[in-house]
């Protein structure tokens, strides 16, 4: 059976709220492709930062679905008060439950959820724009990312680091202009391994969905300095893991 995701027909919308677009679809596709891992992951708390229309959090809850008997607690935040209302409506029309909170990133949740969240999904405002557009009231705040599109991303990453549990995973949408490699390096300093799990070029933009997870090897490496000791076997298994027959075949089975 097809894993269900949110349906456009059931989505609620508002003129001041970002409608699902290529970036939202790319993120959900990446989650779909990683679905079997997500189910095995058995997350007890899942969170979306910047939920907009609710397309992603609704899809996440649907794709983890009833198969995952443990049941997760879903929380979605957005700084835009219209967005949280729209997200609530979208969730309801799909018969899903998630708690929505109108807040800046995870303000108010950071303390009690420290080191507790198993899955965080973020499709941030990532478009390079003049600084003054960042965080303005109005729809532009949905995409305005300031210099290199990194203003909001750079605030979200340390918060996510504080929230993620030891086994926590972070899925982040980035644009080539955000310099994903540099983001990965920065997260590496905090002890995270990363992988681009989906890359998609649309007419307008080149999107990367990066998955981050804590990795003790990375932390050691980061402390000891990076040495290129991963050759030979590592390379072989890397290319094996990424033969065209691995991820996307797996992903496509779900479709």
């Amino acid at each position, binding site marked *: 059976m097809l894993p269900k*995701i949110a349906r*456009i*027909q*059931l989505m609620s*919308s508002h003129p001041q709220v970002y409608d*699902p677009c*290529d970036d939202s679809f*790319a993120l*959900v*596709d990446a989650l*779909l492709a*990683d679905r079997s891992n997500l189910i095995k992951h058995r997350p*007890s*708390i899942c969170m979306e930062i910047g939920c907009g229309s609710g397309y992603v959090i609704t899809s996440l809850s649907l794709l983890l679905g009833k198969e995952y*008997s443990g*049941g*997760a*607690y879903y929380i979605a935040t957005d*700084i835009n008060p219209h967005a*949280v*209302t729209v997200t*609530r409506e979208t969730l*309801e029309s799909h018969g899903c439950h998630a*708690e*929505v909170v*109108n*807040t800046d990133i995870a*303000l*108010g949740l*950071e*303390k*009690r*959820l420290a080191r507790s969240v198993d899955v965080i999904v973020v499709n941030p405002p990532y478009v390079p724009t003049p600084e003054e557009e960042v965080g303005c009231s109005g729809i532009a705040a949905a995409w305005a990312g300031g210099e290199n599109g990194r203003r909001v991303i750079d605030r979200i990453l340390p918060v996510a680091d504080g929230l993620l549990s030891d086994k926590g995973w972070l899925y982040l949408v980035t644009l080539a202009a955000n310099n994903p*490699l540099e983001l*990965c390096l920065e997260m*590496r300093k905090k002890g995270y*391994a*990363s*992988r*681009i799990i*989906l*890359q*998609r070029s649309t007419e307008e933009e080149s999107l990367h969905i990066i998955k981050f997870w804590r*990795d003790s090897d*990375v932390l050691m490496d980061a402390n000891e300095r*990076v*040495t*290129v000791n*991963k050759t030979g076997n590592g*390379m072989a*298994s*890397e290319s094996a*893991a*990424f033969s*065209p027959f691995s*991820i*996307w075949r*797996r992903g*496509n089975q779900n*479709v």
Partner: protein
Amino acid sequence: MDLKEEGRWGEPKGSSVSILARLEGTEERSCCLFNIFLYLVGLSTSPSAFCLRRRPTPSQTPIAAAVQLHRGVVRMRLLTHNMLSSNIKGVTNGFPLLIEAVKVVEKEVDFNEDFLKNMFVKVEWKALVEASRTLGYTELPESAEASMLDSDEFLRKFHHALLELHLEDGALVCPETGRKFPVSKGIPNMLLHEDEV
């Protein structure tokens, strides 16, 4: 059941499934190459993994509200109240937030023992007991420990307090400053003013 024949965004482009179906080899390969690159520069280690100090004034103290039975719509549950704290600059103990209830609804929620057990470890028990009392539910024991999770009676009470009592309208009040965080239509607003951060 379809409410509309076509997505609001017109073309079938609006469907994730069709986008997935369009994924092509080049994309896969460039993605792979990027990951190999990440791996080589040492970013990826696991090649197999896909993979003000003022007490609340009396008007700010909790008031019990009329409880209505409501189906289908989930509002702010006490589980969420248990996860929120006041983040105002200078506040050292912003938890638990006091509840000023204007409208409370009760909703029947599916019972899931695994979920309750998962959540038990994350919940601050005393805060849950106080919050449920504010909303008029007084059945929870003063203290709780993991062994009590074997009792069906205990689980039912925990389930009810945690998931079935919903705050629809009211406010969450910072225990230190008395600052109110409004809850409207079940959605808490934890945004701070510029001088509070």
